[in-house]
């Protein structure tokens, strides 16, 4: 009875297969919020503050009210509503005080875009400019301008986030492991280095678009380009005091998110305009300028790292101060400060670790979730730091990493013990170093004349990330059989391009043993009809959605077997489900097709049993704990995905221009679920990482006004920026609680790309650059400065 059965049919996991959304997208048939129109729809436009910090003295909407076609006007004075995912610090429209140039202060809904825009222009607002602070380090000074003087009165998620009264600190995350003083005492040498990251734009090609309608009976209907339908619903319900059932959020195809659409953005404003306009739906489409200037960015970061090391390279102590430039509001910023701190030493064994991760308010565009959730920013510092130390000690950057890297039996800085199935950063590093021939690199000296002309350099960097998510994060899925034994998978994680649905199709088709073409993972997310999922962020959807789908498949199989057992007169444990059939294992001809029982089975005499097969599955993160507020110790990580990059560049010392010759990337993904989706996530993430490395960053003038809110002066990578060669390596150390052993890899490819490049520049020239981006001007100036010092 217990002869193991292994099917060779419908083995899709690890394979390829067409994207489920490809045909819609290549024909132009895919509908995004961008083109959605609903009956009676009005168009909304937003007015923003020209000042970084100012008191609103007077608002006059009388001229705007006279514009033909205007149906609603809102200002902060008329709309007293506060929002916040974790810190309730932002009014939907600036009220009394505005805190960044670009902050929304008024909005109009009208019959046409033109009328709405015209009316916005005619709203008169008088401001009294106030002193402002733009740098997070300056904002920490005792006498710094207070961005939120009433911080101590704000509602916030208590016990998780700790705003510091009478400061600009929205949150202070601490990691305290071991004995930091003893650690430094043990060190042979101590180094202190600084690094900076500018704020960066998500730049999805589809901007934020929302349609919201205030329905009678205090209900809301929202159609939005977003990543997390249930988060939108939840925040709505809380903010507007509605039962969850009264809020319906639908998400069609989404033109990119990268974290910028993870939370709640234009939805409340659109809803309020609709309410004001007598319940007519209101559509707000962010212009590209607004996408850059008004909608939140990736936080900037300033890092101070103090490291104690033995002469052989072993780290004895690590003390880090992360100063996050949260901008004017905390949004996801506090969570990034928290999450990145738990990763804040990199994938290394650090027995004595002290991290202070401070999320600091400034009068600039505020930060939100961004692919990598602080890890690219943190690892810029951590990986550059390690290379600098290696060089100072006369050690090989590869060796110093292998010496300190996390291995089975070691413990992370949050006290998590590494098991044999956590993943292998050491193997990832080995693969990329070999791929780019790291042994054979330039090793430019750090003294004497700088090299001239075009020079080459190689750099390596490690990375790690676990999903930053609440301890209760869960996912659920419904799988319903259709009459022809095809299935619809209903799941409300959003596939906004990362291809998770195509991976889930591999899982569902294999688990149910049906052709992949018969799996329809439904692209319209709808909180009214689909089961709960937390958010589509954090590289956790394939894992949690995969597990939920497997659970739902098991439920389907159980229902199939329950009916089949009766019809075939065999016990359920003797039945096999394979290739759209359920049969008695030892007499395979005795069986039924799925089709025969998909919506109920009918006996020849007409008796019908069973009913529609609808599978239900769920998965909740197992065993996570809160982090100790003082020490940061606990288990916050569902899983860890480790990775590494090796990069070879060619640098023109005359201009500072960099061409990327090769990037080799390796990740321990546990198990590849869909080869193409895995590979293309890496390709896309690496190139997006190159943007952060080479030229991306917001610039502000001395009054805090954004200088580059357009593609003219905020450049993102084009096809010409792709390296001459990119390779991807995948290690598969199974994640025991992942679907088929899989982990996520959505965010990871862009992390540590800038680090590898900074290390390669050092290899090529002997010059250390500590600030991003590595633009041609910044590199040139760094070389010029070094030349002066070294050749004088």
């Amino acid at each position, binding site marked *: 009875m217990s002869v193991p059965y292994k099917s060779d049919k419908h083995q899709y996991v690890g394979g390829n297969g067409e994207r489920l959304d490809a045909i819609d997208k290549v024909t132009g048939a895919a509908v995004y919020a961008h083109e959605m129109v609903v009956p009676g729809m009005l168009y909304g436009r937003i007015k923003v503050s020209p000042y970084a910090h100012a008191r609103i003295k007077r608002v006059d909407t009388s001229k705007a009210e006279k514009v033909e076609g205007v149906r609603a006007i809102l200002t902060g004075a008329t709309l007293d509503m506060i929002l916040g995912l974790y810190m309730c610090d932002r009014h939907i429209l600036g009220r009394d005080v505005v805190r960044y140039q670009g902050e929304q202060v008024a909005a109009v809904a009208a019959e046409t875009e*033109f009328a709405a825009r015209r009316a916005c222009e005619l709203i008169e607002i008088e401001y009294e400019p106030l002193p402002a602070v733009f740098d997070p380090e300056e904002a920490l000074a005792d006498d710094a301008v207070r961005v939120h003087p009433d911080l101590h009165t704000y509602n916030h998620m208590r016990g998780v986030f700790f705003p510091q009264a009478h400061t600009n600190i929205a949150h202070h995350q601490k990691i305290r492991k071991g004995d930091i003083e003893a650690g430094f005492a043990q060190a042979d040498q101590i180094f202190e280095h600084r690094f900076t990251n500018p704020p960066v734009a998500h730049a999805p090609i589809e901007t934020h678009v929302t349609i919201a309608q205030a329905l009678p009976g205090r209900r809301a209907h929202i159609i939005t380009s977003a990543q997390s339908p249930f988060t939108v619903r939840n925040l709505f319900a809380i903010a507007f005091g509605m039962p969850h059932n009264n809020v319906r959020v639908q998400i069609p195809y989404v033109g990119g998110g990268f974290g910028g659409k993870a939370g709640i953005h234009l939805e409340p404003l659109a809803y309020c305009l609709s309410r004001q306009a007598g319940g007519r739906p209101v559509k707000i489409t962010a212009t590209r300028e607004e996408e850059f200037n008004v909608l939140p960015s990736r936080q900037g970061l300033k890092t101070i790292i103090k490291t104690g090391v033995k002469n052989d390279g072993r780290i004895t102590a690590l003390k880090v101060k992360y100063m996050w430039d949260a901008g004017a509001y905390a949004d996801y910023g506090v969570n990034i400060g928290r999450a990145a701190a738990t990763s804040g030493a990199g994938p290394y064994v650090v027995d004595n670790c002290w991290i202070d991760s401070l999320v600091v308010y400034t009068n600039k565009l505020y930060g939100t979730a961004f692919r990598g959730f602080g890890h690219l920013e943190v690892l810029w510092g951590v990986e550059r730091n390690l290379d600098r130390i290696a060089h100072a000690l006369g050690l090989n950057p590869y060796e110093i990493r292998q010496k300190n890297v996390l291995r089975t039996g070691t413990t992370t800085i949050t006290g998590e013990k590494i098991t044999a199935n956590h993943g292998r950063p050491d193997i990832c590093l080995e693969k990329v170093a070999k791929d780019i021939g790291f042994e054979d690199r330039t090793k430019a000296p750090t003294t004497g004349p700088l090299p001239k002309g075009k020079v080459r350099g190689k750099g390596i960097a490690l990375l790690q990330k676990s999903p930053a998510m609440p301890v209760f994060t869960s996912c659920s899925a419904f799988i319903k059989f259709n009459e022809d034994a095809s299935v619809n998978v209903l799941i409300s994680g959003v596939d906004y391009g990362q291809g998770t649905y195509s991976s889930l199709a591999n899982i569902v088709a294999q688990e149910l043993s049906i052709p992949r073409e018969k799996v329809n993972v439904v692209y319209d997310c709808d909180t009214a009809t689909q089961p709960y999922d937390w958010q589509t962020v954090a590289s956790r959807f394939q894992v949690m959605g995969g597990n939920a789908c497997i659970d739902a498949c098991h439920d389907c199989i159980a229902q199939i077997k329950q009916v089949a057992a009766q019809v075939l007169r065999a016990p359920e444990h003797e039945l096999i489900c394979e290739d759209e059939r359920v049969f008695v294992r030892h007499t395979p001809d005795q069986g039924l097709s799925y089709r025969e029982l998909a919506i109920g089975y009918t006996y020849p005499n007409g008796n019908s049993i069973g009913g529609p097969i609808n599978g239900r599955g769920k998965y909740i993160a197992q065993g996570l704990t809160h982090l100790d507020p003082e020490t940061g110790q606990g288990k916050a990580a569902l899983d860890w995905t480790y990775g590494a990059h090796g990069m070879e560049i060619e640098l023109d010392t*005359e*201009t500072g221009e960099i061409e990327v010759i090769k990037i080799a990337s390796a990740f321990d993904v546990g198990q590849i679920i869909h080869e193409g989706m895995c590979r293309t996530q890496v390709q896309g993430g690496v190139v997006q990482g190159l943007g952060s490395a080479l030229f991306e960053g917001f610039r502000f003038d001395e009054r805090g006004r954004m*200088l580059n809110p357009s593609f003219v002066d905020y450049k993102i*990578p*084009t096809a010409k920026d792709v390296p001459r060669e990119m390779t991807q390596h995948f290690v598969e150390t199974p994640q025991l609680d992942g679907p088929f052993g899989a982990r996520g890899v959505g965010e990871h490819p862009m992390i540590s790309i800038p680090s590898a490049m900074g290390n390669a520049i050092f290899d090529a020239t002997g010059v250390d650059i500590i600030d991003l981006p590595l633009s*041609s001007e910044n590199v*040139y100036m760094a070389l010029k400065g070094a030349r002066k010092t070294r050749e004088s």
Partner: protein
Amino acid sequence: MNFAYEKPTTTKALSGLLEQAGSGAALLAGGTDLLGQLRGRLLEPQLVIDLKGIEELSLIEHHEDGSASFGATVVANRIIDDKRFHGPMAALPIACSRSATFTIRNRATIVGNIANASPCADSVPPLCVLGAEVELRAGDEVRRLALPAFIRGVRATVRKKNEYVAAVHVPAQAKGTRTFFRKHQRVRGHDLALANAALLHDPEGKRLRVAIGSCSPAPVLVNLDDMFDAPDAEEAARRCMKAILPISDVRASVEYRIDMTGVLVRRLLSDLQA
């Protein structure tokens, strides 16, 4: 915003519209610059006059004496595709090919590039060293101006409100003349110039001329004739770096612009020797 749209089919009709509308009219050639200005409310005309209905303005002519002219609606890609520009006048099509994107160049015109007088205009330095002239017309009145006389400063030209640039005339070049163009950008993809420069080498007249853009309100011309027989890259770079008046802006600092001008000039002289 609401404006009227006219598409005259003769230059006479065009002039009539301009006389009437004056400063209330905007001229539309390729529209790639104009539409950006309309979107940003930098311009609010009552009337937009589309020049693309006038056949005469769409012509490219290569005259027997070796000179060339092209009308106001000639797009950049047509200049690039025209092999006859790839001789002594080569800096012009090269500059065009480095300008904007292929897609934009299917619409953007050289005349528009000049008439908008953005300091970053890529076609301007080559046209300066080539000695090109713009032809301005108002009704039957015609005048020609060399580019440095036409462009006064940032987005400022001497074009009167009732005038339009009908054509650009590039004189015949001396035998053996070669021209070169280089542009420094922030990225490998499409970008405005941080610095751009054109070099002319005329062995017959022993002329060595450089024009530099994006580093001053108007194009800067540098005469290096005195070193024609023995071009000195360092000295040439030094003179050009001194001649420009760059600003620091979101794209680049003064220092980087100056240094990159030097690099461009040195590299142009290398191109010459190659």
